[in-house]
């Protein structure tokens, strides 16, 4: 083949390459085109069920919470939940399946792509998806009377930042755990408590003080607050703080995910 000019680049490759990310993303996008229907269905139906069950089931007992109509309280709260579910679970399971069963990552890493780029691209793609799917419960709530506001346009962006962190959390978890069965430990001891104590379904200010302090370490709580404030009106520096926590969470988990996946993929 040396008789023909090689199409491979003769330039020096860098540690972090846009085209490497693009390559991994193209693979995801092309794959997604073959299963987007089922993913979109579950990502839409699940938060809608939460919204209907809590909003109307519980809403018949409680009309207002923390100054909001309960349907609106839950409708904005479940945005963060939808982001969580559409990022952490796909990240955990698809990462595990791709390195353990499909050996996809072996193929990608044999090309000029490093683990760092691979993990980053995977997390970016999941973050984009969860930013979009995260907006679904809000739109459902709009259909049930949530008033429109300009701040709603920022909700997919908040979903993207939070989704990137959760995606990295899922990828790192998959890199760390040796068996897919152990995922249920993470789900029941980490994700479920974070999911419940985030101010999604009930406000935290009636909980014991210890819980309230602990909730500040829950990235989901900050996502819930930030989304709610985006929809109903920002609270200045408080929201800068919420955003800051989400960004730090995303950055730390991103580096950890790379570390754990390198350990998993490179002997």
């Amino acid at each position, binding site marked *: *083949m040396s008789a023909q000019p090689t199409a*491979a680049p003769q330039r020096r490759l860098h540690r972090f390459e846009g085209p490497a990310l693009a390559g991994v993303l193209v693979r995801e996008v*092309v*794959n997604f085109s073959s299963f987007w229907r089922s993913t979109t269905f579950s990502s839409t139906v699940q938060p809608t069920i939460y919204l209907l069950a809590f909003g109307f089931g519980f809403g018949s007992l409680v009309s207002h919470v923390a100054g909001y109509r309960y349907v609106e309280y839950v409708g904005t709260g479940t945005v963060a939940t939808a982001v969580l579910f559409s990022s952490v679970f796909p990240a955990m399971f698809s990462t595990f399946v791709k390195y353990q069963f499909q050996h996809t990552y072996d193929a990608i890493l*044999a090309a*000029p792509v490093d683990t760092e780029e691979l993990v980053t691209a995977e997390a970016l793609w999941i973050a984009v998806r969860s930013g979009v799917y995260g907006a679904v419960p809000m739109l459902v709530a709009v259909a049930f009377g949530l008033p429109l506001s300009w701040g709603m346009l920022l909700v997919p962006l908040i979903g993207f930042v939070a989704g990137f962190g959760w995606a990295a959390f899922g990828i790192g978890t998959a890199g760390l755990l040796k068996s897919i069965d152990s995922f249920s430990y993470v789900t029941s001891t980490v994700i479920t408590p974070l999911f419940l104590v985030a101010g999604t379904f009930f406000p935290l200010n009636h909980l014991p003080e210890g819980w309230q302090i602990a909730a500040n370490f829950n990235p989901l709580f900050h996502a819930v607050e930030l989304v709610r404030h985006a929809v109903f009106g920002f609270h200045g520096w408080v929201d800068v703080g919420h955003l800051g926590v989400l960004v730090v969470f995303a950055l730390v988990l991103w580096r950890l995910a790379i570390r754990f996946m390198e350990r998993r993929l490179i*002997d």
Partner: protein
Amino acid sequence: MGSLAIRIRGAVKRYGPITAVDGLDLDVPEGTCVGLLGPNGAGKSTTMRMLTAQAIADEGELEVLGYELPRESKQARAECGVVPQLDNLDTTLTVEQNLLVFTYLYRIPRSQRRDAIERALKMANLRDRRDTRVDKLSGGMRRRLLIARALVHLPRLVLLDEPTVGLDPQVRQELWALIDNLRSEGASILMSTHYIEEAERLADTVTIMSHGRAVATGAPRDLVREHAGREAVEVYGPPPRLAEVEAEAAGHGLRTRRTGTSVAIMEADGRFPDSIRRPTNLEDVFVLLTGEEIE
């Protein structure tokens, strides 16, 4: 001699208590096909993984296309094509989509992507299957696609890890033609295999690996002549008779090996009249050198 596409010196790779590669030296001169022959567990796949920096050597020096590993591995990988032992195609995508993804991963400029895909489809004889989903392809076609995917960017060096394992003989010959064609076009090839015939047919040079080391290196014909002589005879019989034959051969200072139902004696010079004469082969060399059976 020209430059080396691969140069490995004293490579060691340990996995806990197991030393998978144990001081391996290996050269692949540019433009040649080198066969890495050895039984399962000899360290062939680990060697392949080290060459793409998916395994990092504990000791030793590795160079691929003049790039030092693992430091410059990304640059080396950009100019290599890798055909893995395990099929890792995207099964829900079409043939063409699988190739498309790799045109991105290998940085083929947008204007050349179409041509690159067409060329790869043609070479693997998959043009009329371009829109078929991979899970609808036969085993042979999947393997051809796996090779095409590795060649989409016209690599200077191709790493083939057990390219025909688990395929039926007809499909295997089809792939041999494909690999032979690749070599004739000037690509350097390192191919691991545990099929003797594959190494004999395709490789300019064979390195026999055992327990993580290279135990012999040379052109297949030279290796056979040097280690097994020109001709062997095979004596068939029940196990006690075979033991007698072995003892008798040892008495004459001859080299023997068991081949299941018979004993093969190298360079017997007509001493065993009730035997079948045959040319020596690479398998004789392999068993004589390693004491291990293959296949």
